[in-house]
């Protein structure tokens, strides 16, 4: 759905430009072919652009060139193969080739949390931009898409000035990205808005031309994609601000779950009742083991760190609480596990040795194989540390999980994980788990005890099948 907003710039107002390469539509490059960059490169080739994907990781580039997407994303494999075949899409590890191809270069490299603090690690951005800038030989636009601290675009402008010929007139712009893993293709082809931070009409026009395929697709489907044109700082902030809000909303309902647990309320009913209010809305209002992944946790921490540097740390102190609420949900599962298994929860945590626990789910959300800062995996680690024999199964995430947390056992099926378990924990809301048959599972489990860490199971169904059921924040 698009919301018409009177002050957003109408797309018609933008003057056409000729791309510096002379091609009829700008030629695009994407630097960093991870989740974000690979999805973009593939989807924009699909929209008809000539695209080069660049990465420093040779293995990844080889895989992509061979037609295989190195991560799980529904629908992407087919698009990759189709566009490789069309000749519009290629991958390289060569900066010069990338610089030569592109009119608009999108920076899509990772910006993880720094090992030594809460701030974002910008070394990959720096490497990609300077590597590219050194090889650019004509005017071009460098567009940041990675999630970065406010002020980064200005810094990149200086970086480009240092590494490129000044008379080339290379410009910088910012266009934050909102795709969600699991829906990445749809989100790239049909975004609910495009935000650009620009300093010149030329940059604005080039960005418009570089997204014209998205606007044209929308027009054929009788939709409109609003474009918000603003300054660098605001564009950078949009992304972290959006993530800060979503994290806050999730932690808000999880805080209500904490209160429900002591007051005897039911947070699922509470969420339903407040979700009717259109000022609140029911999206992102499911209580559970909280958020994780490569974005939300690191983004809210980096945001706080940056605000601190700017002297506005006070403004974002609530995000620290949001983070703590989120992390407490993980310990809560451990606590409920101890209760269900009749183990004492002492100051050092419970002793779960001698118990067998099935953990269903490892990824931070369903329809993804991403296990970065995944609550499911974190809980599995806590259970293991407490001495339990943990058997994990995830429909897509086993391989990544085994690399990140080698101390638990990985099973090839839900059944194998549940076999003889004293306790089952559902920690990622995959459809396979939501639709599981509690009677069938009850026959193979040893103890019919289940923790629904995502409030995604039908509690009546499970209770009727003889399971002792515990949700999150449900009395």
């Amino acid at each position, binding site marked *: *759905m*698009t*919301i018409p*907003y009177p002050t*957003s710039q109408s797309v018609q107002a933008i003057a056409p430009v000729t791309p510096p390469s002379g091609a009829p539509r700008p030629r695009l490059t994407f630097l960093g072919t991870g989740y974000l960059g690979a999805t973009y490169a593939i989807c924009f080739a699909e929209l008809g652009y000539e695209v080069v994907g660049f990465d420093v990781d040779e293995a990844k580039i080889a895989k992509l060139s061979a037609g295989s997407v190195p991560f799980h994303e529904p629908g992407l494999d087919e698009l990759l193969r189709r566009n490789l075949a069309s000749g519009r899409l290629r991958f390289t590890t060569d900066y010069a080739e990338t610089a030569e191809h592109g009119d608009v270069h999108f920076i899509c490299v990772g910006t993880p949390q720094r090992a030594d603090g809460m701030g974002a690690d910008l070394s990959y951005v720096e490497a990609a931009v300077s590597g590219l800038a050194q090889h650019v030989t004509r005017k071009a636009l460098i567009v940041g898409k990675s999630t970065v601290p*406010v002020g980064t675009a200005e810094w990149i402008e200086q970086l480009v000035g240092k590494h490129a010929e000044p008379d080339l007139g290379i410009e910088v712009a910012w266009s934050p990205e*909102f795709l969600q893993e699991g829906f990445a293709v749809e989100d790239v082809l049909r975004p*609910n*808005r495009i*935000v650009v931070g620009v300093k010149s009409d030329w940059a604005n026009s080039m960005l418009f031309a570089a997204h014209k395929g998205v606007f044209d697709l929308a027009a054929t489907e009788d939709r409109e994609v*609003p474009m*918000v044109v*603003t*300054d660098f*700082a*605001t564009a950078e*902030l*949009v992304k972290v*601000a*959006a993530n*800060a*809000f*979503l994290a*806050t909303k999730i932690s*808000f309902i999880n*805080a*209500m779950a*904490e*209160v*429900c*647990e*002591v*007051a*005897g*309320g*039911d947070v699922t*009913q*509470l969420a339903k*009742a*407040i979700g*009717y*209010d*259109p*000022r*609140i*809305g029911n*999206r*992102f209002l499911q209580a559970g083991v909280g958020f994780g992944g490569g974005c939300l946790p690191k983004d809210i921490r980096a945001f706080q760190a940056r*605000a601190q540097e*700017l*002297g*506005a740390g*006070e*403004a*974002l*102190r*609530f995000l620290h*609480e949001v983070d*703590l*609420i989120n992390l407490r949900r993980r310990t809560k599962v451990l606590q409920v596990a101890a209760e269900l298994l009749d183990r004492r929860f002492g100051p050092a945590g419970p002793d779960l040795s001698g118990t067998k626990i099935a953990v269903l789910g490892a990824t931070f959300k369903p329809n993804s194989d991403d296990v970065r800062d995944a609550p499911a995996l974190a809980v599995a680690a806590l259970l293991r540390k407490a001495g339990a024999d943990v058997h994990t199964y995830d429909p897509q995430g086993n391989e990544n999980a085994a690399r990140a947390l080698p101390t638990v056992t990985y099973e090839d099926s839900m059944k194998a994980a549940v076999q003889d378990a004293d306790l089952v924990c559902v920690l990622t809301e995959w459809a396979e788990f939501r639709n599981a048959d509690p009677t069938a599972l009850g026959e193979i489990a040893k103890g019919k005890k289940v923790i629904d860490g995502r409030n995604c199971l039908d509690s009546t169904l499970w209770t009727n099948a003889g399971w002792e059921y515990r949700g999150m924040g449900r009395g």
Partner: protein
Amino acid sequence: MNTPRLTVIGTGYLGATHAICMAVLGFEVLGVDVDQAKIDRLASGEVPFFEPGLPELLAKALESGRLRFTTSFEEAAAFGDVHFICVGTPQKQGSHAADMTYVDASVAALAKHLTRKALVVGKSTVPVGTAARLTAMVKELAPAGDEIELAWNPEFLREGFAVEDTMRPDRLVFGVASAWAEERLRAAFEPVLAQDVPVKVTDLATAELVKVAANSFLATKISYINAMAEVCEATGADVSDLAEALAFDTRIGGRFLRPGLGFGGGCLPKDIRAFMARAEELGVGQAVGFLREIDGINQRRRARTVDLVTELAGGDVRGKKIAALGAAFKPNSDDIRDAPALDVASTLHRLGAEVTVFDPAAMENAKRVHPELTYGENALDAAAGADVVVLLTEWTEFREIDPAAMAAVVGTAAIVDGRHALEPAEWRAAGWEYRALGRP
């Protein structure tokens, strides 16, 4: 079962609105209050506060003969089948907790006279656990004893839209302990439910929590965008572009995402504080510790507005003439409880400014609480000769002010838009120095 006769105990904003609307919808209603003057005014057809549409409905309800008012609990107990408790639950003096003395007093006064089966329904905003406590109290005090049941039906009406919200709410929440109580509540809301309003039936504790949770969320959303404004102020970004870009995300939504001077009124501030206090008592204070930050962000917006005015006044407001547009905590209301507008106006006065206030509805209330301030006849009158104009409540009539007309009467054309209510380009074009929170 038959249509229940209703009593509404406590006829303030909430109670008077509920009583009047229910009578208009066809119920026989008795309004009860300890404040004789208020009861007399209501009985004579006068709504003691500003609420669009309500005076007309009061006249209609009185004329129908279905609505009466009394100060007698005995009469109320004899009359009613379903009793709605709508008394105030203000912040306790010297503490963050809710003051429950009015709820306890009114329920006790009613219970003593309850001699037949009846349902007592709490509507006031209360700490979780109150319903359970009152259930025990009522059963002990009422001659009808165990025949009396308690239910909770939290209220979500917004002042300024109270009639609409009562007649056509987003949802109804019934916290009940028995099927009988649910049936009685359904009967007491029959005409409302007939319009397909969703009902969430739940336990007493969840129903109590729904209200404070909803208010906590709204407060959080407002303070969230105001925190973004603080960051924008530190970076030169523009929070109104930011809010616009965020609003396209349907998980966020544009409602309550308008940056500005923050929230006030008789509900949000006291409700989030009472929630913190109650969570603390329950041993989960850390769960809602974030609300302290939410409160802090909100308070800082007021200070920031004072700073912006001071900046435009040349660094010192002493002896400067300041026009304050707005006093109510929000437009379409005369409610000045914890109003950010009056807080800013009185702070400027304390700092030595000559402050002239105008508000379309809240003048009388404002004068009572802040007699030290000067009051104008209208916006232009308040702005006459002003060094700085500050817009503090986003009444439509302020949004529609002609910047050129106002420029003609002020001393200096400088304005602080505390509510992002004006179009900056228009005001700047008319020669104004325009400043807003969170914008360059």
